């Protein structure tokens, strides 16, 4: 177990170092940072001074080490486009994305599992079949079209919910939250549905197929023969045993929610990190891109690590394998 954890942590660190190298190479080789930072009226002395200040006269490994040192401390340099430190910009934008991801993740998991169990139990019912067909369309429907469709129905036609922005936000320390105002909550509804819908259908289909498999198992048949209540069989016996793959996929989807937030944030002009990243790509704002890349890979690698370690907590069989391996 301990050996396994150490090996996984070691692998994660290597992945992060490689991603760091990619991010750093972007800095170093995509355009000349000195060119980007100094204006038209520059002298050779200015160029040389900035080169020394940025450490660009040092050899490559030393520069890479410096970059990693800065990255660990949250220092990614200054945005080419906004002229402010990248860390400050990201800190401003992060609450919007995290709140959106939190709400849509919650929606996806709770509704996804509930619908998955429902469609598995009533697998020949009309309602269950309708849900399954709709989910297939949901998987084919690109996220941005779902967003546009929701805007059309609820903002243009019904004029019920806002089509863009976060509404009013309340500042608590460094965190701006939309949870505390009515307009902030209203603004959350459409984006979080848009973002959560795809993950919801995915979780639902997974829970359904796992449930169908488990419901056929001998121990479920035995539980039924013992005369246990349907509810106890479905939830205590069957659902519990579907959880390992569900937790894996859900965990990995958590990362995708952050990534897919880019699309949702663009559709709804949600002032989060994703919108920042898209604008950075459009204007080739390398420091912002590099910082986003590092941030998101830390998140993904972290989630993967946690999911892997969670296996041990959930599935006792793996613990035995881990010891022998």
């Amino acid at each position: 177990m301990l050996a396994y954890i150490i090996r996984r942590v070691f692998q994660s660190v290597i992945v992060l170092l490689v991603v760091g190298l990619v991010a750093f190479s972007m800095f170093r080789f995509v355009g000349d940072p000195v060119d980007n930072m100094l204006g038209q009226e520059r002298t050779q002395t200015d160029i040389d001074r900035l080169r020394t200040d940025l450490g660009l006269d040092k050899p490559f490994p030393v520069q890479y080490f410096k970059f990693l040192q800065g990255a660990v401390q949250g220092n990614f340099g200054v945005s080419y486009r906004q002229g402010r430190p990248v860390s400050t910009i990201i800190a401003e934008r992060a609450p919007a994305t995290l709140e959106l991801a939190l709400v849509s993740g919650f929606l996806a998991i709770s509704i996804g599992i509930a619908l998955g169990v429902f469609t598995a139990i009533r697998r020949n019912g009309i309602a269950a079949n309708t849900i399954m067909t709709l989910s297939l369309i949901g998987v084919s429907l690109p996220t941005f079209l779902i967003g546009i469709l929701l805007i059309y129905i609820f903002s243009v036609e019904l004029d019920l919910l806002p089509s863009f922005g976060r509404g009013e936000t309340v500042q608590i320390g460094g965190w701006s939250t939309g949870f505390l105002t009515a307009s902030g909550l209203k603004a959350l509804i459409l984006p979080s549905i848009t973002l959560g819908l795809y993950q919801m259908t995915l979780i639902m289909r997974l829970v359904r197929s796992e449930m169908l498999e488990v419901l056929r198992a001998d121990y479920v048949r035995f539980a039924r023969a013992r005369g246990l209540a349907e509810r106890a069989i479905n939830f205590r016996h069957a659902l519990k045993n579907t959880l390992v793959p569900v937790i894996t996929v859900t965990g990995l989807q958590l990362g995708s929610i952050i990534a897919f937030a880019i699309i949702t944030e663009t559709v709804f002009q949600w002032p989060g990190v994703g919108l920042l990243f898209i604008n950075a790509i459009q204007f080739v704002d390398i420091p912002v891109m590099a910082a986003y890349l590092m941030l998101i890979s830390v998140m993904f690698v972290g989630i993967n690590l946690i999911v892997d370690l969670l296996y041990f907590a959930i599935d006792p069989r793996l613990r035995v394998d881990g010891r022998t391996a």
Partner: protein
Amino acid sequence: MSDMTKDPATARPSRLATFWDSDFVWSFRHSPVAIIALLVVAVLLLAALFAPLIAPHDPFNPATLNLMNGFTAPGVPNAFTQETFLLGTDDQGRDVFSTILYGLRISLFVGISAVMLAMIIGVVLGLVAAYVGGWTETIIMRVADVQLTFPAILVAMLIFGIAKGITPPEYRNEMAIWVLIVAIALSDWVQFARVVRGAALVEKNKEYVQAARLIGRGPIPIMFRHMLPNVLSPVLVISTISLALAIIAEATLSFLGVGAPPTQPSLGTLIRIGQGYLFSGEWWILLFPSITLLALALSINLLGDWLRDALNPKLR
């Protein structure tokens, strides 16, 4: 075998008839969903292929455009010029039907090229990983594992962003389509590599591979002449599903403004443009490209679903 070809009475039925009676075609003939999906895909493919012949207007030739025709509703004669447009016009007076045909062309071209490139990269790396083994395998599959933890669309965006930074500004529009293809392909090869490696690991230990090795064939002919045909059927399934994903990925990137340039609009670019008119009532600029994209992605997905079931006898 030679007797059979000589005697017409015992000759096997023609190849076409054999094909028609095969399980594969049988399951196709008995699946209305698959037939409709294939029809939709075929119609859209032909429309894209013959876009210059079908399109009533050339949306990229400014000489044929009349600004007075701007915002004409579908099927209603324009108030100034009395011209009628099947699916209406956009702000520039461009015929929406024609822009969709040309957009479909770009979407399909990018999607198909990206999947083919991803397939080549994935199949080669997967085969090499399985056949050579050792460090080569470890490195290839580790990279694949790591890449798989990142969503494909994010990888594509990053590659696109980096490529955009490297190319000089004056070439960016020209290069955009090719960069898009490479970006989507590099974000998608992992699926192919993993499946091919899995299948090839099984094939590697079969007798025909050992026999080929014994008679002294080199590793490259063994991998590509002998093993490749035996690992292709899962590749077919993945490439159909990948095609739908690639088309959606392209549309998404273009919608976000980091894909096809405005000079070569794909369906995603058209939807991006159309979204601007959502509140002002010109619904046709947005609706028709969206429906086209949806029909394309959905029918390719359905076709892929059917193909997976048809090629997997366990599910029948």
